[in-house]
């Protein structure tokens, strides 16, 4: 057998070990991992708590947005109905879409990941528990504040895709649009934090022996899901930023009179928006794959094809964004391309669908509640997929685009592709986190009400659309043919709501949260989340030898429970988990995890405060709140990356692993690289905007920059990069002094500031006015992005210096030091590239 890291796979044969393990080890694990009590409980970071909070919050937003949906349906039940005024209706439908997409669907998938992933991988926790806590609190406080705007009739009212110029200052002068832009932009930060967590979790914290090919499909789905978030979400972060800059500072990115273009928004938004649909669908499809196999009591048929399908979906989904823009007058060639890609994306869905059908056929499915929900999901999703293929045909799209046909289509896709699977998952996995499973008897009622309600609501709605009823209309006139189908849809919506209500009753009767005394494996799943677990997750971390270890090794559950595998105790007296290699999951080192802390929560609340106070134009409180984030973040990080007493520890079976690691093998390295991918994508989208606006309004563009300024700018950034590398080199050298490595970082930070200042002064001396043209506004946007990076770099360099003074920069290698080095290098690179691009194009080439 070959090895990825030099770990000898023969060592796996030591497990299960034979000797009895003392119970005191369990008590110690319990003590170390116990959640804080009383008010301090809010500072909990364990994934089995945060995951449940997260799911609860996402479900709350599902219910709230569902109530908005009922309002919409009630208003449309009759022509000229007066339940909602025009303005309130416009707010209600905007909030329904926005909350369902941004506060429910994506966070719910992330939440399910946070709860289920570590258990499926038999990790003790996710690699950055405090980051999950931060993501949760940011999302929850920000989301509640955002939702509350509807109670003050201040909610956004331009539709969930917020097309400028309707959402621009001139046509939306109120703070409604700002709430959307800042609120959503901010909630995306939480989503990205979660995505980074999940990527590193999947790649680095799998149980030993769980090679990529043995990974549960859900883990594959989450990996791709999180990767897609890193690529797609920067586009919406950038477009919300640009629009907010246009609104607040009058920088004309979307104003055609000054060289902007409303289409820029549509490209950026849908570059996010379409992949977002698959971002929602893929994890749900992963859940379906897991449940179909478990409920049919057989191996998933076509595992490899499904993995390929997931990857293909992700790939193709980035090539279909323009199919939301077929009616904007695009050239025929690009229409053909996007039409073909939009059809192609249905093939991976077909692969998964038939894999599930084959799995049902290969096994012996029982007709319990989760199975019913899965069957309902498949039928519903297929119908949505078929209307999706219809929409990919451009001439048909020209007719039904922006009608109720579209509304019906995407509700089929999203309810079939995400909501029904989610309810199946609630029933299936409830035993993991509740003392009692949910009721099968009630559950079947829940299913039939929801399923029939869904069909009654949305099947006739296709017809409503074909009869010409546009979407987003607060009313319609009586002498149309739309009355009957609208009334039927409204009745259906209430049937669907009755199903959800019944589910709530089931929850109230049967859901009793626990991490220790759970009801267990009610549906007989074969993956690791069904191992007995406490707050520390499983007693020991098993060696994984197949895809359904619990089915293939009947003794596994007991052996794990008796501590016969990896890490049956705490090796260092801290919270810890085993970090394994990305492909073959060979043990690499022991990661020490941080425990409960109030700082992530405070950081999240102040971050939320910063963004949300900005929206209500409370500028000074916002700045105050923003400034408070910094000490909270630093205080949170200060505890991490501490020197460990012994550099190796026994992790069971006599295997010794390092207790510290840095560089490309370490979890921190992966996380920072993921973050840099996000920052890079934001930059890349800005570059796209630059070329796009140049292409659209070339006559507005001029050679504005002076290329000679590049000499000091590039010199400064080059020097910074050189100093960073020198610092890294010095740290590794035995004979360097205490201060020589961090001093290089401080000098590098100085060089970054110098180069940035030269860049800025260069543009100022050219007399640039960002309100005058989109070109100048984009130059300033590049500068603003670079300014932020430089500011963070300076803080980081100072942070390293302070830690060095306290003797926390260990030698020869140090995680904090390496992380900061990566960030500084990136900052220098992006700064140089931005400065060169803006000064050399157009003209210089």
């Amino acid at each position, binding site marked *: 057998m070959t090895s990825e890291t030099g770990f000898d796979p023969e060592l796996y044969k030591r497990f299960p070990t034979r000797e009895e393990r003392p119970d005191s080890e369990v008590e110690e694990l319990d003590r170390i991992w116990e959640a804080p009590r009383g008010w301090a409980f809010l500072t909990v970071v364990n994934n089995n708590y945060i995951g449940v909070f997260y799911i609860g919050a996402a479900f709350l937003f599902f219910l709230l947005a569902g109530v908005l949906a009922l309002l919409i349906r009630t208003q449309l039940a009759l*022509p*000229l109905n007066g339940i909602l005024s025009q303005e309130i209706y416009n707010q209600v439908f905007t909030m329904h879409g926005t909350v369902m997409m941004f506060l429910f669907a994506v966070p719910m998938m992330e939440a399910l990941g946070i709860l289920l992933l570590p258990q499926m991988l038999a990790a003790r926790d996710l690699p950055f528990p405090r980051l999950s806590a931060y993501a949760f609190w940011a999302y929850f406080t920000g989301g509640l504040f955002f939702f509350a705007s509807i109670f003050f009739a201040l909610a956004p009212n331009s539709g969930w895709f917020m097309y400028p110029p309707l959402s621009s200052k001139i046509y939306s002068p109120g703070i409604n649009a700002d709430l959307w832009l800042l609120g959503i932009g901010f909630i995306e930060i939480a989503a990205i934090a979660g995505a980074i967590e999940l990527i590193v979790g999947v790649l680095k914290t799998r149980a030993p022996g769980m090679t990529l090919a043995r990974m549960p499909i859900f883990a594959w789905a989450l990996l791709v899901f999180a990767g897609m978030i890193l690529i797609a979400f920067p586009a919406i972060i950038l477009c919300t930023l640009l629009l907010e800059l246009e609104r607040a500072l009058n920088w004309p990115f979307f104003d055609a009179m000054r060289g902007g273009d409303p289409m820029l928004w549509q490209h950026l938004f849908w570059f996010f928006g379409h992949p977002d649909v698959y971002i929602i669908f893929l994890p749900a499809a992963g859940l379906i794959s897991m449940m179909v196999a478990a409920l049919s009591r057989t191996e998933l048929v076509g595992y490899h094809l499904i993995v390929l399908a997931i990857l293909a979906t992700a790939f193709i989904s980035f090539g279909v964004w323009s199919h939301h823009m077929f009616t904007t007058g695009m050239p025929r060639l690009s229409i053909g391309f996007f039409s073909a890609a939009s059809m192609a994306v249905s093939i991976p869905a077909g692969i998964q669908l038939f894999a599930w059908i084959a799995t049902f056929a290969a096994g012996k499915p029982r007709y319990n509640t989760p199975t019913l929900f899965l069957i309902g999901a498949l039928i519903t999703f297929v119908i949505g997929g078929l209307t999706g293929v219809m929409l990919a045909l451009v001439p048909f799209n020209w007719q039904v685009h922006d009608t109720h046909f579209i509304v019906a289509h995407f509700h089929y896709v999203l309810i079939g592709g995400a909501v029904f699977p989610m309810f199946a998952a609630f029933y299936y996995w409830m035993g993991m986190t509740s003392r009692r499973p949910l009721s099968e008897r009630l559950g079947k009622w829940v299913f039939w009400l929801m399923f029939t309600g869904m069909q009654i609501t949305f099947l006739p709605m296709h017809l409503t659309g074909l009869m010409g009823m546009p979407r987003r209309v607060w009313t319609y*006139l*009586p*002498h149309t043919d739309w009355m009957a189908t609208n009334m039927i849809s409204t009745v259906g919506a209430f049937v669907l709501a009755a199903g959800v209500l019944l589910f709530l009753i089931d929850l109230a009767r049967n859901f009793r949260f626990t991490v220790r005394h759970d009801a267990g494996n009610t549906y007989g799943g074969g993956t690791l989340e069904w191992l007995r677990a406490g707050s520390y997750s499983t007693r020991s971390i098993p060696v994984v030898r197949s895809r359904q270890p619990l089915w293939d090794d009947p003794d596994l559950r007991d052996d794990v429970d008796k501590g016969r595998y990896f890490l049956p105790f705490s090796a260092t007296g801290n919270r810890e988990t085993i970090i394994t290699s990305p492909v073959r999951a060979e043990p690499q080192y022991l990661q020490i995890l941080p425990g409960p802390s109030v700082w992530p929560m405070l950081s999240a609340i102040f971050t939320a405060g910063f963004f949300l106070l900005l929206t209500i134009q409370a500028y000074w409180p916002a700045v105050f709140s923003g400034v408070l984030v910094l000490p909270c973040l630093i205080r949170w990080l200060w505890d991490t990356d501490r020197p460990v007493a012994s550099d190796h520890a026994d992790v069971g079976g006599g295997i010794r692993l390092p207790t510290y690691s840095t560089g490309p093998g370490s979890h921190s390295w992966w996380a920072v690289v993921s973050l840099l991918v996000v920052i890079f994508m934001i930059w890349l989208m800005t570059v796209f905007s630059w070329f796009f606006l140049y292409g659209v309004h070339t006559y507005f563009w001029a050679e504005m920059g002076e290329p000679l300024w590049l000499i000091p700018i590039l010199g400064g950034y080059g020097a910074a990069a050189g100093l960073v590398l020198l610092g890294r080199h010095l740290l590794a050298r035995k004979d360097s002094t205490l201060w020589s490595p961090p001093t290089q970082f401080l000098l590098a930070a100085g060089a970054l500031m110098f180069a940035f200042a030269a860049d800025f002064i260069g543009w100022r001396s050219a007399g640039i006015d960002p309100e005058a043209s989109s070109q100048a506004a984009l130059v300033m946007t590049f500068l603003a992005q670079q300014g932020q990076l430089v500011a963070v770099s300076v803080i980081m360099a100072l942070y390293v210096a302070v830690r060095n003074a306290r003797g926390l920069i260990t030698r020869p290698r140090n995680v904090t030091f390496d992380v900061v080095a990566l960030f500084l290098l990136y900052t220098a690179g992006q700064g140089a590239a931005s400065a060169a691009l803006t000064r050399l194009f157009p003209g210089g080439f």
Partner: protein
Amino acid sequence: MPGADADRGKQAILKVGCGACHTIPGVRWPRGKAAPALDGMSGRALIAGRVPNQPELLAMFIRNAPSLAPRTTMPEMPLTEQESRDIAAYLYEVGD
């Protein structure tokens, strides 16, 4: 009302667009709010607060309100006498 037909009255209402100012029972669109709603006409003592509510006066008011109530905002309508009687009949019929 002798010789008046409520159905024809409704057609006349739609033809001259009474609904643009009045919300009228049985007229689904438009349902204007510039002037009072015309429900419960048979139970009212006065038309427009000053003219006794009698069928012939109502018909006349419908056709030429300024002649009965000089300062009213209700304009003269391009209706024949028959049409105005039909409309009055309609309003009494739906206003019971």
